[in-house]
């Protein structure tokens, strides 16, 4: 009894972990399935076919490539713009600062359906053709908000005395930014960039509104495929994405703790 009570917290944590990981485990498991029909919903037979031919289904790797391209471009642009906005908002008092704060927050609060459809209306009105260009503009727009929020928290927590100390010690404004400001806000910027990428990569609703038949992103492909049948390759790519995310997160953790230890 005592033992159980003592380890209650560990049990709870374990249960939550299982709850969160089960879907991923199932996806990974079914990537080794060889379904009998078009749908990969029932375990039939072990096979590594799909792992050997991840692009074996027409269109899947094109859609993955497009999603990666949009995801990377959107997150890079949104991170650069968002970081600049965050510094402006965090550092300077200017007229319209409060309303800018509100506007930045809007895309996060607006339901995606509303945003997707209104963007489509806007693009049609302005004569912007649907397709990957329109999708990219839309993604940059909503990713921007998340980057701003992530970076702004870091900027607000940054002690202005540190930059003064750098200047006092002879660092030019550029050196101060590169050696003090940037390293101290980097965790926020990295978090913003990762968030932007994953938001862009798996966005379905807004993308769907603004897509053309030639711009099928990965989530759209999966959704379209599920009405026709679900190729095992979807599970393979899903598993790979999960593993990549895992490596990034664990890598980040290790880097952090190694720094700590190096310092000790």
């Amino acid at each position: 009894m005592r033992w159980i009570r003592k380890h209650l917290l560990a049990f709870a944590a374990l249960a939550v972990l299982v709850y969160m990981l089960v879907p991923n485990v199932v996806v990974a498991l079914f990537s080794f399935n060889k379904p009998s029909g078009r749908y990969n919903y029932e375990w039939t037979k072990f096979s590594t076919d799909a792992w050997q031919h991840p692009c074996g289904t027409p269109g899947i790797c094109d859609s993955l490539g497009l999603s990666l391209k949009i995801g990377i471009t959107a997150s890079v642009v949104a991170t650069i713009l968002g970081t600049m906005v965050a510094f402006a908002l965090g550092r300077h008092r200017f007229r319209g600062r409060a309303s800018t704060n509100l506007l930045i927050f809007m895309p996060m609060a607006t339901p995606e359906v509303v945003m997707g459809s209104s963007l489509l209306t806007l693009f049609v009105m302005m004569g912007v053709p649907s397709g990957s260009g329109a999708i990219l503009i839309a993604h940059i727009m909503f990713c921007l908000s998340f980057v701003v929020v992530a970076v702004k928290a870091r900027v607000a927590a940054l002690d202005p005395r540190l930059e003064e100390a750098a200047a006092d010690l002879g660092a030019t404004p550029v050196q101060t930014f590169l050696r003090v400001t940037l390293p101290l806000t980097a965790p926020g910027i990295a978090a913003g960039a990762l968030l932007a990428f994953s938001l862009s990569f798996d966005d379905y609703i807004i993308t769907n509104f603004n897509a053309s038949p030639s711009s099928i992103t990965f989530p759209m492909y999966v959704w379209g495929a599920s009405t026709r049948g679900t190729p095992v390759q979807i599970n393979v790519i899903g598993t790979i994405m999960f593993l990549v995310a895992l490596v990034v997160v664990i890598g980040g953790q290790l880097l952090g703790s190694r720094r700590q230890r190096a310092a000790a």
Partner: protein
Amino acid sequence: MAGHESGDLRLAGISKQFEAFTAVHPLDLTVPAGSFFALLGPSGCGKTTTLRMVAGLEEPTGGRILIGDKDITDTRAYQRNVNTVFQSYALFPHMSVVDNVSFGLKRRGDKNADRKAKEALELVQLGEVARKRPSQLSGGMQQRVALARAIVNRPDVLLLDEPLGALDLKLRRQMQIELKRIQSEVGLTFIHVTHDQEEAMTMADTIAVMNSGRVEQLGDPATLYEHPRSTFVANFLGQSNLLRATVDRGEGNGVVEVTSHGHRLEVRRDHVPAGVRDIWLGVRPEKLRLGDSGGPNRLSGQVTDVSFTGVATQYLVRMPWGRELVVVQQNDGSGRARAGETVTISWAAEHGFALDASQDADAGAQLEDDHG
């Protein structure tokens, strides 16, 4: 000292205004090159603001700042050969201690930056924590890192904003001696901000006592202590007994006779400002004697409190008009008294000083030492 020597720091009419609030009133100050200068004053009197203007972190509302003959008023902080030890340390949290210390040298492209940084850390007795992060050090250690980070650059002027505030008494004394040694060895100009009057008096060649944005008095520690020119300085620098008195015409050989609460007392002539009639007559507690042996000035009152402090005993003696005088007697076997006893206290004419009576007698007599 000649005012235009090469490295003297000169503040000419420097002032700072934050919107409607004047933090520093126009201030003229010359700090000779290589001297240890203390800026002393209560919290909020404008010490940090003055330092920040010298460092280039705050733009003065008016006035000029010069080092030697060079006007640096319009240069930016990174262009000035002035370094600051910040009140809040401001160590870079993402760098190791040694990288913090070598930061300034590396910005100037010094090839021996790492070696010099290590030496500076040895100097503040932190050689063994060079690779740690600032967050892993105690407050006192961080303060010493901040000190090393500034000293290592050998600036024209080193600004220290309460650099010893977080240290315990023993380490504080040790660092005071160390700071003095470093200062005389490398010959840097130190401007040391503190609200600890004892620290200012033991360390500085010259002290400027500041009060609400103004310099009340400037001078060497002994002059400031023996001849304060305002009640604020008299009370802020050590303790003072102030007696209300009027100057009489009758004057003898080098002394002025005054009357205080019906008692005839005398003060040395050159301790009385010219042309005033109503004065505060001030005497330091350790100049008063229990008994008649102190001199011709005598008052009697009742002892209300006795506190033994080891080398000395402090008495509170209530005068017939209500004010309590503080008397400090060395425990050298001379006259003792007990609480409740009626005693005579005496002092010599040269131990008194007179201040214009239009000032508040309690100005500056706040909490002796308000940091832990």
